[in-house]
Each structure stands twice: as C-alpha cells, then as structure tokens.
C-alpha cells in the first residue's frame, strides 16, 4: 500500500512555479538574453538596474521569480527523467539533484537579494 506522501505539497510548488514561470519569465529572457544582446533595445544603465533591484518590492518579486520556478523545474524534470528517459533505478539520486538544486538556487537568490 502507498504511504502518505508529500506529493501534494510538491505539486503545489510545481503549479505555483508554473504560473510564475508562464507569466513573468519569458519577458526576462527576451530582454536580457535576446533584445539587449542583439541591440534591438538600448541596454539599461548599471545605476538604473541597481536602483531598481534595491527596491524592496523588486527584491520580493525577484525572489518569487527565482525560487518558485526552480521548484517547478525540480518536479517536472524529475518526471521527465523518470518517464521520458526511463531512468528509474537512480530515482533517489535524481530526487536529491532536482529538489536539492531548487533549494540551493533559492538560497543563492535570497543571499544575493539580501546583500544587494
């Protein structure tokens, strides 16, 4: 029989991260990964971005945008490896890699945003 699991909690993080990733992340990558490097839009100055990132509301926003999508990735990637690549014997390793990665990424974002 199956024992009670934390699956529901992880699924909640997965779906919350999915919403955040769907709404906010494309514009971030479009600006900094495509539009600014290709010169489609003028690059913002260091001072402007730094001031923007120092705003408490921006910090809260950036923390949400960094942490929740990482848990979304952890959950989805874990099952991609499990079902897609059928790597079932390394289940624990994959689990630790995925959720561990999400936790580490969240801690790094908290550290950067607290110091900025």
């Amino acid at each position, binding site marked *: 029989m199956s024992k009670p699991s934390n699956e529901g909690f992880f699924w909640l993080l997965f779906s919350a991260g999915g919403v955040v990733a769907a709404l906010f992340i494309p514009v971030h990558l479009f600006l900094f990964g495509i539009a600014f490097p290709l010169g489609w839009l003028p690059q913002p100055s*260091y001072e402007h971005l730094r001031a923007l990132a120092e705003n408490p509301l921006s910090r809260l926003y950036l923390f949400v945008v960094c942490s929740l999508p990482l848990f979304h990735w952890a959950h989805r*990637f874990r099952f991609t490896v499990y079902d897609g690549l059928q790597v079932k014997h390394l289940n624990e390793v994959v689990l630790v890699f995925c959720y561990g990665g999400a936790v580490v990424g969240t801690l790094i974002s908290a550290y950067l945003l607290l110091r900025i």
Partner: protein
Amino acid sequence: MTMQPSTEFHPRWYRERVSTYWWMGSWRYSLFILRELTSVAVAWSVVMTLFLLRALLNGPDAYARYMHRMQSPWMIALNIIAFCFLLLHTITWFNLAPRAMPVRVGGKRVPEFLVAAPNYVLWVVASAAIAWFVLRK
C-alpha cells in the same frame, strides 16, 4: 520499492519493456516530451537572472562583463532556443488551465478559449509592465 509477491493467486506483474525512445513514435508524444523539457529552459532563465543579480551586486565592471558575455553568438543562440521553450511552456500552461478548472456559468460550461483568454491578457500586461520598469530612463 518492494516487489509484489508472486504466488499462484497473485502472478508477477507482466510489463512489456518500453523503448527509451518511446516518445519519438508519434507527434503527440514528442510534443509531450518537448513540453516536459520546457522546465529546463525555465531553470536556465533563473540561472541567467541569478548571474545578472550577482553582476549587479559586484559593480559596474561585472555588469559590463555580464552584458558582454550575453552577446556571444553561442549565448544568443541558446537563449533564442530557451525562449522558444518558454513560449511553449506559457502556451501549454495557459491552455491547460480551463481543463484543470472547468468554469460553468448557469449550468453551461464556458468555452475553453474564454477561460484561457484572461491568462494571455494578464501575460501581456505583466510583460509590458516589467519591460517598462527595466527600460524607463
């Protein structure tokens, strides 16, 4: 994981071995795997954002180096691919919402596109707002 006991009354489960490349057989399955792989693009974007934050923390020189590194053809190519995956995630996620939460008005089910549409409106508004904050002088 524990194995099911196999007795006369409880036979060993028979599972046919599925190829590792089972998802290449049909377009629907391939799209499923492509959709699942969008999470890699999501994680990649977060990592790029974390590097940007680190550069902002380290000063103007670090920021200039970050922007310069993002201009390398490899990075641009990777980011364009990742952006396509992000769009796939956004579209599949929004279109799934009406199926996860069917909305009924007066006993009738609201058409799926009407439930998905507000997501797209919100997406455009949020993207425009973020771009405005980043780009304003």
